[in-house]
């Protein structure tokens, strides 16, 4: 039973990581750093809340959430792809922007600085709050498809080939007529839509938007992308691994075995270890972050 609870908890925690990290893979494979995953998730969560609140439909919430992620993705792409601004600086600024903007509009829309009213989610209640409730959430099934879809996109489509070329050697891609900037724009927008879905899942799961509710999940997703060496399959595994660590942390809370803070460090520590190349070096796409200049 404990194992089952642990498994379900892991899956629930993994869903937003999976969406965001899948988006991160697409953008970074196209050569654009995505430190703004956190902000795009927050935009998704807020959009979903607005949509679901005003229409009462969770599905409209999903669409609005995707739109919310796209807004911040577009800002990032405009600054970094179009104007060639530094991707790290803009990524961090987009995160700050998302936090500030969602707070501002939270007050504008709901006159609250902490949370929105309760909104519709997917009707999980019918099954009850049992362990298998998650199976009633269509976003869970969508999340299962996210990485296979990204893997197919990158490996099996002409666009994916261009994405990989743009991230590895943009000059070579340009020299054979690939519109690298357009490819990067689209890749960033795809990452925004996917990260937005991660935020949607959070908001609809909790039936409300709360201030900064993504709580660093975007950065865990980045850690997963790097730890998974930018390969969809490995990144998916990293997401589940990091989610399991967090589920473990929840299980350990209140016990004296291991302070939960140390379990919380696992994803970050593993990522640093991967970057330092202690166990198989994580090598980024060759032109990642070089669009500036």
């Amino acid at each position, binding site marked *: 039973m404990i194992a089952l609870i642990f498994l379900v908890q892991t899956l629930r925690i993994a869903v937003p990581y999976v969406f965001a990290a899948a988006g991160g893979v697409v953008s970074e494979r196209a050569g654009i750093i995505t430190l703004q995953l956190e902000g795009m998730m927050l935009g998704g969560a807020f959009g979903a809340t607005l949509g679901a609140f005003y229409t009462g439909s969770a599905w409209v919430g999903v669409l609005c959430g995707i739109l919310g992620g796209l807004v911040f993705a577009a*800002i990032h792409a405009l600054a970094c792809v179009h104007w060639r*601004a*530094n991707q790290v*600086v803009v990524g961090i600024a987009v*995160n700050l922007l998302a936090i500030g903007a969602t*707070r501002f509009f939270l007050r504008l829309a709901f006159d609250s600085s902490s949370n929105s009213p309760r909104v519709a989610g997917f009707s999980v209640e019918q099954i009850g709050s049992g362990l298998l409730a998650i199976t009633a959430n269509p976003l869970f099934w969508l999340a299962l498809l996210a990485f296979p879809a990204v893997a197919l996109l990158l490996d099996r489509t002409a666009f994916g080939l261009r994405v990989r070329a743009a991230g590895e050697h943009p000059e070579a891609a340009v020299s054979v007529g690939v519109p690298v900037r357009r490819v990067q724009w689209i890749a960033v927008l795809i990452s925004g839509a996917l990260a937005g879905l991660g935020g949607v899942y959070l908001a609809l799961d909790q039936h409300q938007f709360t201030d900064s509710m993504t709580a660093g999940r975007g950065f865990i997703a980045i850690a997963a992308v790097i730890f998974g060496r930018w390969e969809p399959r490995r990144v998916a595994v990293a997401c589940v691994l990091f989610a399991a660590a967090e589920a473990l942390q929840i299980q350990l809370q209140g016990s004296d075995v291991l302070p939960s803070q140390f379990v919380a*460090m696992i994803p970050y520590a593993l*990522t*640093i270890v991967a970057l*330092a190349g202690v166990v198989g070096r994580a090598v980024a796409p060759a032109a990642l972050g070089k669009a500036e200049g």
Partner: protein
Amino acid sequence: MATTSVEPAAPPRAGGRAPSAGRLRARLEDALLPPIVALLIALVIGDLLILSFGQSPGAVFAQLLSGTWGNAYGFGQVLFKATTLTFTGLAVAFGLRAGLFNIGAEGQIAAGGFAAAAVALALGNAPAVVGIPLAMAGAALAGGVVGAVPGALKARFGAHEVIVTIMLNFIVLALLNWIVSAHMAVPETLHTAPIRTGTVPRLSELVDALHGSAANLTILVAIGAALWYSWYLFRTRGGYELRATGLQPGAAEYGGVSVGRVWLKAMILSGAIAGLGGINAVLGYKGYYEEGMTVGAGFIGIAVALVGRNSAAGVVIAALLFATLSQGGLAINAIVPKQMVEVLEAVVIIAVAAAVPAVRLALRTARRAEGGEPA
């Protein structure tokens, strides 16, 4: 990301001290135009946000100014916030001068603040002449240690400092959270016991009008750090080698500089500056270390360095700008949500980051057309 060059600000101009009027004008344009463009963009967006709340932009901005530079308390708060941002801004700028992007100031300043409190607590009732220097040293040391990790990993393995510092932020904050909550917190709180030595006097003890504001003599340390920053970079051999490494690693190597060693040293010093910033809130204001007391200072420090173009004076001015925005948010909160300024801060950063390349390109084109500057 292994070899990304992250140098958002201008290539720092060294040595030349305004030799001619034309060059001075060019440098001024270079330095001022991007932030001015950015502020204009922020102003427009601010107007839109204010209008969306059904308020008058003029009234809001007037309130923002009068609540900050318009009264002694507000001004004191601006000074207090600018002090912290000067430290983190200098820390980020210092890294950038060496060609490194230190996103870890967030964790470094928290580590510094904690260490200052821990040292002060350990010293018990020691006199201030002992307590203050030792607590400061502890803060700088802790920040330096946190900075050393990405520096060493970069020098040894080429691990990209951006990702390492981001990840390290979370690790450091989790570690501090554990130490404080498990071992040092006053029950029912997230802060340590109050310190009994090392307290830095408030400015209000010198100027009555500042009463109630958190501004304290740490501001002198911040000014000292800014002066040291300029001195170190432009007057010492280490600074010379650091700037050469940041501008042209190939030339530095040619000049007998060990680039890896410079990276390590730069990250340690950058971390130490950020760590020292932790004393402003701990020794100068609260008198204890509390979870999240410096949250955001490291990230805004990136903006401060960017707008301040990695010069000491620029960083101080940019710190005042961002402190004004932050304090101004509180001043206008009665009319429009204070979160508006968070949006504006982010807009300024994005606009500067995007406008710096764009404006510089436009300037260069214009000057080349004039035939003024060699291409």
